[in-house]
């Protein structure tokens, strides 16, 4: 029976049957490791920023794998890994708790017209010093 001859010699070495009639056994359901969320720090003192996750059997392995998965390019000073299950989050259907009524502008920074007042003050000060 012919085997697949690939440009990649590593594939050729696997001796895969070329006959399309010969199919391999179906794979069992994948056993995936749990996930750990990865937080990346670009420079000392900066916030750790969430960059993605890795699959790993435990936190130690997650840290080892996160280092190359997320820290191999660009500057990195540190990495955190956190068990995904340790993160408490709102349920998607509860996202309405973040909605707010429009007539409470006084609770928002943009509702304060401080800038105009500050500029008026500066203008008055300048006029004052010129005198």
């Amino acid at each position: 029976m012919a085997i697949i001859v690939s440009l990649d010699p590593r594939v050729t070495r696997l001796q895969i049957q070329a006959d399309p009639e010969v199919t391999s056994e179906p794979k069992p359901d994948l056993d995936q490791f749990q996930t750990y969320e990865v937080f990346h720090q670009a420079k000392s003192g900066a916030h750790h920023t969430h960059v993605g996750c890795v699959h790993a059997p435990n936190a130690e392995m997650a840290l080892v794998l996160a280092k190359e998965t997320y820290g191999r390019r660009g500057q990195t000073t540190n990495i955190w890994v956190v068990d995904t299950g340790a993160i408490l989050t709102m349920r998607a259907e509860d996202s309405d708790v973040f909605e707010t009524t429009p007539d409470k502008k006084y609770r928002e920074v943009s509702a304060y017209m401080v800038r105009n007042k500050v500029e008026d003050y500066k203008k008055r000060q300048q006029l004052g010093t010129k005198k």
Partner: protein
Amino acid sequence: MSNENKRAGAQKSSGLNTEALKDLLFRVADDSLILAHRHSEWTGFGPLLEEDIAFSSIAQDKMGHANALFKILHEKLGEPNADAIAFGRTEDQFKCCQFVELPNGGYDFSLVRHFLFDASELIRWQFLQQSSFEPLAKLAAKIQGEVKYHVYHAQTWLVQLGAQGNEESRILMQTALDKAWPYALGIFEHGAAEGALIADGVFVGEDVLQSAWLEFVTERCAAAHLTIPTNTTAVLGGRKGYHTEHLKPLLDEMNEVFRIDPSAEW
């Protein structure tokens, strides 16, 4: 010419024995190059995506170490350029130990080799930070972080599959360790002029390295619930250019593109 004059002729103004130095650099560089190639054979075939990335990255690091050493050989010691050294030599001119040229086999063997070899590499580069040959000492300081990660990666896997896995994974690791051990001892085969390297303060020598390594791996293997084989004899020859039948096919594959046009610009 008297023997005395010949020896003086072989030395550079730095006062170091150049032939001994070159022999050391070739041994270390060839180990890195060949193991880098073996590691790179896993790219795309790793046991999980994250590990595929990590192991490929480690292979790239090792290729970089070989390249840096070849550059020193070229720029400071009059050897041809890095590409010519890496791709232009025949197998009997390679000084790598036989351990690094063995086929990958399964991931168990690759991990155990990665652990045993990189532990020796970490300690070797720690000693080389004190080398009297300045380019080597500088390189040692520059790459210590990479090598430290390689060992951290390797020993975390070792403990994971040895002590924290199941009986099947522990037996796989133990079997791989038994197979690897005699070859690992071959890492410390003496170079052509071991005495000169030690006398010149270039390197503390393979014997000192081996005992530091043995202490290091014994402690780590115990933590991974693995037993170090006893009554084994080191597999030697690599440092003198005697290799297993596996090196030539590896070189043929590695050099395939280079041979099409050795003068091509990359």
